[in-house]
């Protein structure tokens, strides 16, 4: 057995070394896959074993909440593989598909290394740790545990932070959809058609054949494929294509209206069926992409390290440290998982020992999705990648300008090649479609068409990929708006008790409108930004998500100290420190950097001096626009300050709790007592 693991380690080191050190010639994506799998295998076998036995002391004989509070509904002992599927479906979302695509501007190597190191030492540790402590506390939520372990004040600060993160997350996800669907009649048609499909599924499952989820999803899937095909017909027809062509701003307003309507309607009508469809489509697409990469074995055409590690890149501004580490959040470490790991999963854990497979293991799989996204972005010709992801303010709006500009950076591409890619995927224009989805879709269509259909099906695969991303982002949008609404009702309810009444129609509508206005504001701001919006919003999202991870890991560290396991508490302290350094540095730079592309204040300064000179700078077209740009800068600034204040407060409270725990010789954490051991422990 030792020899086996030594061989895995050697293979991993060899492929990682090969990927890292190759210069001049292209590297096959398979090496990246092999390196990643070896790293995951070793990390799972050794590090998670260390965490399970030495740090957490998982006890398979301990009764889990699923047994103790079994109600057949929320608390149900569940087979570990079944629960793994549930947990993975809950943590996998758009995040790991977008961040790595953006980070590819620095070459594939920095992103790969951060994804691997991040998941092994931070992301998977966080998921495992939170799942473990929540399981020992009856499956209580993150907010609840922060309140009991670190105090009511810390609990309130954390819930304000989570709400702010939610708003930014929803805005940035909506922006990705806008970028993919603006001026794309094919994409717009297919996404529109998901509404009647979902309605049909909803009515079917409510009245015709209730509870037949799989049957209904299969029907929905077939209709969806028909819609993609029909979208191609629509896009080819000049009259209909015109009717389904919408600008970015119209899409922004349609999304806000949709988010509002979908989240106040009964859930069974549209939200739930869409969720079923998008969940299965997501899992299926991830599997298809993995198989595609293994069959096609594409070459990585992006350089290992590009010149843009110096921070001058067009996709997102800022240098490798700290911005790479916040651009790739999900896939390395994602604070949102802490909400899932303290949500439904701990209530279904059959045996505490299985927390390792589900907490640590599922996150490794999630990380492999990020690696696949990075591969999909890196198999594109680098010139095409930059033309698709650089904002119009930098590369212009015609293929000739874009090709000339991108070639001048050293990534040769011809205008004809850009036109060819657009026509291959059935679009008029692929320039400046930042946000990950279109780039990933082109990469995926290249990989998947290599398996089925060749060039003839490329346009189909492209729109399949766009639809798949749009579908689950829209599901997140309406589900997220609902959750944000409940959070607002809860927080505002402490000031105005009438708002808390979730059965009151007026209170619901008011809170929903507030939630939509929150993310809608940032969405609109992103859509009209000539730098593409993703440039500003994605770093904010990354900072907030990593900040949530830092909060979760702080809670984990506090609990370890209270359990008197401080000798091994570094497993939580080290990633907390790293995340705090990254988010605080990035936040500081976003506010105070003298470069207007990075710093909000410098950007505001630039606009206000132009304003006092009576000049109007793009994107503004009028003086009112200029004032709007200034307001946006100050709002972004305030939000970043809020994030930094939240993380600093939580770190301070965390330190206090740790000192308090150290000064007490007893175990001070509030775990469920050990009772009724299981008769037959199953691992």
């Amino acid at each position, binding site marked *: 057995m030792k020899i086996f693991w030594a061989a895995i380690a050697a293979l991993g080191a060899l492929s990682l070394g090969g990927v890292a050190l190759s210069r001049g010639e292209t590297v096959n994506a398979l090496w990246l896959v092999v390196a990643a799998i070896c790293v995951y295998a070793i990390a799972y076998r050794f590090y998670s074993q260390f965490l399970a036995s030495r740090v957490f002391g998982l006890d398979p004989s301990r009764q889990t909440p699923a047994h103790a509070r079994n*109600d057949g509904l929320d608390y*149900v002992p569940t087979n570990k593989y079944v*629960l793994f599927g*549930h947990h993975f479906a809950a943590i*996998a979302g758009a995040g790991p598909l977008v961040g790595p695509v953006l980070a590819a501007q620095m070459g594939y190597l920095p992103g790969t290394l951060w994804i691997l190191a991040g998941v092994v030492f931070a992301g998977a540790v966080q998921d495992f740790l939170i799942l473990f402590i929540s399981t020992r506390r009856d499956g209580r939520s993150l907010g609840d545990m922060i309140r009991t372990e670190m105090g009511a004040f810390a609990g309130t600060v954390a819930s304000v932070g989570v709400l702010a993160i939610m708003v930014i997350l929803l805005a940035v996800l909506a922006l990705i959809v806008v970028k993919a669907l603006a001026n794309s009649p094919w994409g717009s048609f297919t996404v529109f058609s998901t509404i009647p499909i979902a309605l049909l599924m909803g009515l079917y499952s409510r009245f015709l054949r*209730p509870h037949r*989820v799989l049957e209904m999803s299969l029907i929905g899937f077939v209709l969806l494929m028909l819609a993609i095909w029909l979208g191609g017909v629509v896009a080819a027809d000049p009259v209909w294509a015109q009717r389904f062509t919408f600008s970015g701003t119209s899409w922004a307003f349609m999304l806000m209206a949709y988010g509002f309507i979908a989240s106040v309607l009964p859930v*069974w009508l549209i*939200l739930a069926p869409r969720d079923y469809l998008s969940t299965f489509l997501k899992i299926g697409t991830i599997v298809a992409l993995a198989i595609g990469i293994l069959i096609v074995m594409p070459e990585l055409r992006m350089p290992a390290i590009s010149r843009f590690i110096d921070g001058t890149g067009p996709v997102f501004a800022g240098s490798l440290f700290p911005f790479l580490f916040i651009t790739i959040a999900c896939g390395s470490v994602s604070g949102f998982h802490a909400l899932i790991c303290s949500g439904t999963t701990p209530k279904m854990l059959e045996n505490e020992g299985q927390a390792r497979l589900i907490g640590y293991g599922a996150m490794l799989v999630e990380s492999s999705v990020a690696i696949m996204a990075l591969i999909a972005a890196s198999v594109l010709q680098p010139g095409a990648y930059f033309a698709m992801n650089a904002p119009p303010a930098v590369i212009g709006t015609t293929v000739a300008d874009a090709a000339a500009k991108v070639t001048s950076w050293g990534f040769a591409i011809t205008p004809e090649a850009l036109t060819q890619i657009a026509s291959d995927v059935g679009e008029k224009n692929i320039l400046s479609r930042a946000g990950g989805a279109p780039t990933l879709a082109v990469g995926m269509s290249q990989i998947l068409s290599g398996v089925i259909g060749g060039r003839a099906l490329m346009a189909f695969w492209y729109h399949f990929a766009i639809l798949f991303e749009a579908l689950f982002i829209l599901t997140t949008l309406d589900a997220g708006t609902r*959750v944000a609404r409940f959070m607002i009702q809860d927080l505002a309810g402490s000031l105005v008790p009438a708002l808390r009444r979730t059965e009151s129609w007026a209170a619901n509508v008011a809170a929903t409108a507030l939630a939509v206005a929150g993310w809608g504001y940032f969405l609109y701001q992103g859509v009209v930004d000539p730098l593409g919006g993703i440039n500003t919003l994605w770093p904010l999202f990354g900072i907030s998500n990593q900040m949530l991870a830092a909060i979760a890991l702080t809670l984990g560290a506090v609990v370890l100290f209270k359990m008197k396991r401080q000798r091994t508490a570094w497993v939580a302290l080290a990633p907390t420190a790293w995340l705090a350094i990254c988010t605080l540095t990035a936040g500081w730079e976003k506010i105070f950097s003298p470069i207007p592309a990075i710093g909000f204040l410098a950007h505001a300064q630039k606009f206000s001096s132009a304003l006092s000179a009576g000049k109007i700078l793009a994107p503004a077209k009028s003086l009112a626009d200029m004032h709007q740009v200034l307001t946006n800068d100050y709002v972004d600034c305030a939000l970043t300050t809020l994030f930094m204040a939240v993380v600093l407060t939580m770190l301070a409270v965390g330190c206090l709790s740790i000192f308090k725990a150290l000064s007490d010789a007893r175990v001070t954490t509030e775990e469920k007592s050990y009772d009724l051991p299981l008769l037959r422990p199953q691992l």
Partner: protein
Amino acid sequence: MICHCFGRSFDLSKLGHRLTETANLMVGLPDYDAYLAHLGARHPEAEAMTREAFFRDRQAARYGARGGFRCC
């Protein structure tokens, strides 16, 4: 149906059941049979929800104040 491969035997119908269970739980629908079994064993006096009612109850729970939301 039993399938013999890799020197072990697998019960295919059980595997199929597990896969269906996994797919259902992925969208937040727990196993109805497990619910019935639990109710029968622990609360034989309680009236069980019908399959339809169970489905509606779980659907409403998934999109309540908590849950149903994912990101990355």
